[in-house]
């Protein structure tokens, strides 16, 4: 039997439940809100797993749970053989470097009060405390070149950039600590179609040159089809269907996926 290589990320029966407060103290608390409820999937090293679903389907929460931005109620998140849910804050610290996130809104996810150098060097100060300032500067300059910006941009502030350029800065910040897995939470949803194409191409180029692994969350089915090696379709906190994009998006088995596809305007 051929041994399959160990996946970089394996999520087993993940659940994220949020408690709901009772409207009055003497009333019993309502059932918890099940944002994610029993989700299992694997992300092979160097590949892209796409997650689609409507808002409220739990796709973003799933991604956030992986890097502890959402509380895990149940299940295991196994990263390269280690169950992250079993780790304390200190034990998890090194994984904050290995797993990074790119956010949807490039306008709200960058600190408006620091320049680009400040934005990019902050993660370096945390994860590479021994690095000197000049080392950090040359590193940040290299990072900007990697996302097709220039070293001159280091002294500028976020408001001086367009939406697409800001998203490139967000990508450079995620790359600063040399991660293995990047959780891309709707990274191109807020961008113009012309800019979207450039950012998608950039993400794919970086994946190839740096061997990155992506968990790519989105609601645009065409974008997900384009970037993914494997697709998860989520609804109401569960995975309704998963498989390679050509079978899921060309020949869906589930009614929900069919309904999602039927709603996409074609031309």
């Amino acid at each position: 039997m051929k041994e399959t290589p160990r996946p970089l990320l394996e999520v087993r029966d993940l659940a994220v439940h949020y408690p709901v407060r009772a409207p009055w103290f003497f009333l019993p608390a309502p059932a918890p809100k099940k944002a994610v409820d029993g989700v299992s999937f694997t992300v092979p090293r160097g590949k892209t797993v796409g997650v689609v679903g409507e808002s409220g389907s739990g796709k973003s929460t799933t991604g956030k749970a992986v890097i502890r931005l959402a509380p895990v109620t149940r299940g295991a998140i196994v990263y390269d053989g280690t169950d992250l849910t079993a780790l304390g804050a200190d034990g998890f610290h090194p994984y904050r470097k290995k797993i990074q996130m790119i956010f949807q809104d490039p306008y709200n996810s960058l600190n408006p009060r620091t320049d680009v150098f400040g934005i990019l060097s902050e993660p370096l100060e945390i994860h590479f405390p021994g690095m000197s300032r000049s080392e950090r500067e040359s590193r940040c300059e290299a990072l900007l070149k990697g996302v097709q910006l220039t070293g001159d941009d280091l002294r500028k502030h976020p408001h001086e950039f367009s939406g697409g350029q800001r998203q490139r800065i967000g990508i450079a910040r995620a790359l600063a600590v040399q991660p293995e897995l990047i959780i891309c939470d709707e990274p191109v949803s807020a961008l113009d179609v012309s800019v979207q194409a450039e950012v998608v191409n950039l993400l794919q180029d970086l994946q190839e040159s740096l061997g990155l692994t992506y968990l790519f969350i989105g609601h645009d089915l065409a974008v997900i089809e384009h970037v993914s090696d494997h697709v998860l379709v989520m609804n109401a906190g569960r995975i309704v269907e998963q498989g390679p994009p050509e079978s899921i998006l060309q020949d869906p088995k589930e009614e929900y996926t069919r309904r999602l596809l039927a709603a996409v305007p074609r031309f």
Partner: protein
Amino acid sequence: MSSEPLLQVRDLGVTFRSGSRTTVAATGVSFDLGAGEVLAVVGESGSGKSVSSLALTGLLPPPPACVVTGSAKLSGVELIGMDEASLSRVRGRRIAYIFQEPGTSLNPVYDIGFQIGEAVRLHRPDKKDVAAAVRRALEDVRIDDPGRVARSYPHELSGGMQQRAMIAMALACRPDVLVADEPTTALDVTIQKEIMDLLARIRAEKRMAILLITHNFGIVASFADHVQVMRNGRIVEHGRTAEVMGSPRDDYTRGLIACIPRLGQRRRRLTTLREELRPR
């Protein structure tokens, strides 16, 4: 002689002034919009597509910060340069707007019924029964339980319901022209389809003219009769939707269409506008 279109825009220009700097946001914008027609305006952010629609009813900052030139006639009446009192009778009543983000466009401290009724009270003081008008508007947008929704506050509704409430508000005074500025950009594809189907039905029933501002070519193809493509404040291409989308004459339009990923047509790499516009 052909009859005059409902909305006739000629050589519309918008210039912003800030200190000694002037920025031309739109220039030479001309189009006709007839009753029951849908004209889509597409372009990237900053192309002037929203600004030129806001200029129609004086929704931009007053001069000298912003100067609007040219002409826009609604049923033969000039809107550009009209005094504020007359404009406020046009706004909402003859030309109504729906905006991109219902979450931020609705007032969080009033219930939906009050906000829909506001336009009715303002434009139709003769209307005795505002509550009935509100209910009718909510029924128009296919809300099953108009009584409950009218009493709800914006935060109690989902994004799709908020957008329906916005449309109901715009429709409450039966406008002749509806300006829909990215009406579905913040919504899921399933909700997007519901909203677009709704607009298509209302347009057919009420012979309303719709100016649809969007960057989604899928919506343009399935919804608009005509399309105009804007770039840097100018219209670069204008024509029937099928012609523009099928065989775009302008390089920019072609590039804009080429860079969109399409379902079932997987490519190794997406074309970018920059590559498409590079001289060959």
